[in-house]
């Protein structure tokens, strides 16, 4: 990339990154409990505003940023590994497998701490996603749309298993409370696992060139001397851990991994060294906006973020499938 173009690109990137703190500030001050700058500074309410801020609003805002960027980056990685535009953790059985893992923990080892829960969920997610990739390798897929269909069916089968056992053990309500994406329950001490997701997201950035090469296909990757299996394994590991951390802390947040990477790819292409920072920033921004909207639409009640993103996301998914040159996607 010519130097001038690169400088432009970096300026825009910084500008976009700067909107995240702005949105975060908005997110800090939106909610049922009144938190205003005046109250914080004067401390008139006996520090109640500060307490709400530190215990609820700040963790929630951080969780939104970390989960949003993490899930968006996961979507990008999966799209490179599956070489398909329509794949993301919720269209490949990853999220459903993580949920099954959580149910398994609740039934078999209810006393396990959050971190343990996450590891088990990650293990299930890893197994589910590997199964998805193995199926893809077995069946010759003529149509790009068949790939997410296979993933959604696999997810359906896995979530049917979850529902069966949850129904038998009277766990349906708690499993649905666990897995519906919702940031309203995020409190200090209950979101910190997401920092692991953040670390892994950063790791993904350092492997960006390798993921791009992997996205060119196994033959190309082998030709330039990349160990294809190893990079697929790394990608699966990152995707599973991040997804598990997000599902355990805030539940399923569908479609971010689909919308954000596709928008970025349309604008900038798939050279991840260049595009991955955009994916992370837009992922965080998109989730922040959707969550703030969810808090305001029915104020003082909240619409869960999963619902808000679900609506925006399905509309976008339809657009992707129906747009004129979807076949070359």
């Amino acid at each position, binding site marked *: *990339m010519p130097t001038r173009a690169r400088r432009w690109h970096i300026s825009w990137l910084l500008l976009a990154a700067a909107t995240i703190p702005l949105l975060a500030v908005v997110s800090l001050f939106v909610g049922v409990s009144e938190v205003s700058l005046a109250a914080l500074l004067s401390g008139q309410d006996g520090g109640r505003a500060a307490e709400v801020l530190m215990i609820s609003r700040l963790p929630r805002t951080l969780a939104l940023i970390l989960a949003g960027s993490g899930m968006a980056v996961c979507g990008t990685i999966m799209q*490179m590994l599956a*070489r*398909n*535009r329509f794949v993301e953790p919720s269209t490949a059985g990853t999220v459903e497998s993580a949920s099954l893992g959580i149910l398994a923990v609740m039934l078999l080892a209810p006393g396990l701490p959050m971190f343990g829960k996450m590891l088990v969920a990650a293990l299930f997610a890893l197994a589910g996603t590997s199964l998805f990739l193995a199926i893809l390798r077995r069946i010759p897929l003529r149509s*790009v749309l068949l790939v997410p269909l296979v993933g959604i069916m696999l997810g359906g089968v896995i979530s049917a298993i979850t529902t069966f056992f949850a129904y038998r053990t009277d766990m349906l309500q708690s499993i649905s409370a666990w897995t519906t994406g919702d940031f309203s329950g995020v409190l200090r001490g209950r979101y910190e696992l997401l920092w692991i997701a953040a670390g892994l997201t950063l790791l993904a950035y*350092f492997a*960006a*060139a*390798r993921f*791009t*090469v992997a*996205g*060119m*296909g*196994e*033959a*190309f990757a*082998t*030709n*330039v*001397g*990349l*160990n294809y299996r190893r990079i697929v394994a790394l990608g699966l590991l990152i995707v599973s851990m991040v997804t598990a951390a997000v599902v355990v802390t805030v539940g399923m947040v569908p479609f971010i991994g689909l919308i954000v990477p596709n928008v970025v*790819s*349309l604008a900038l*292409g*798939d*050279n991840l*060294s260049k595009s991955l920072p955009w994916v992370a920033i837009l992922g965080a921004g998109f989730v922040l906006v959707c969550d703030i909207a969810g808090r305001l639409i029915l104020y003082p009640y909240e619409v869960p973020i999963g619902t808000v993103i679900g609506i925006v996301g399905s509309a976008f998914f339809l657009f992707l499938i129906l747009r004129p040159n979807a076949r*070359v*996607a």
Partner: protein
Amino acid sequence: MIELKSVSKQYGDTLVVDGVDLTLPKGGVTSIIGPNGAGKSTLLSMMSRLLPMSTGWIGIDGLDVTKTRGDVLARRLSILRQDNHMTARLTVRDLVAFGRYPYTKDRPTGEDKVHVDRALGFLDLQPLADRFLDELSGGQRQRAFVAMVLCQDTDYALFDEPLNNLDMRHAAGMMRLLRRAADHFNKTIVLVLHDINFASCYSDHIVAMKAGKVAFQGAPDAVMQASVLTEIFNTDMAIHEIAGRKIAVFY
């Protein structure tokens, strides 16, 4: 030197490549010809470690292709396959630049840029350099893939049907370019070609395959014989000498 020792590839009961012994000398252009299903592409894929062999041994300058580290081999040998279905949305320049991946991995250097610009120039791709691959025609895309392989700058470059999708001007231009890579840059070029007349005009050595075996090999003059080609392709062929070149007529 590329050496193959009793190399076979079997799918179920079908023997696609059947005990091939072959030595390709260093330097020059070698074309592999033969009818559909003769095992040409399979052989090329095995030479470039994209496909495991069922039995046999292949060495590139003595390096066992199945045992040598991927990145070591990637600095000696490059391969372009026939079907390059690319879903990643890359610009031509990005794609070509990945040809430097074996040398600099994630950190491109100034020297890489020189290689990239030269490869783009070789294939007339400068005006298209910032276009995305999905915005190109099939022939333009094919030239971009070839540019990437040239940018990899390996001693051995293997191409499966490099003339795919190219019009006459670009097909002849491509063959001249590969000829030049062999003559001026001491590269060893191995091609799978369907068009035997291109093989006749631009190769130093022709290997004819049939039913998984090497049926005949030699200089173009030796292979471009009516009796030899008729036998290999199961089609009546006449050889004419036009402007000092042997041209097969089978239309």
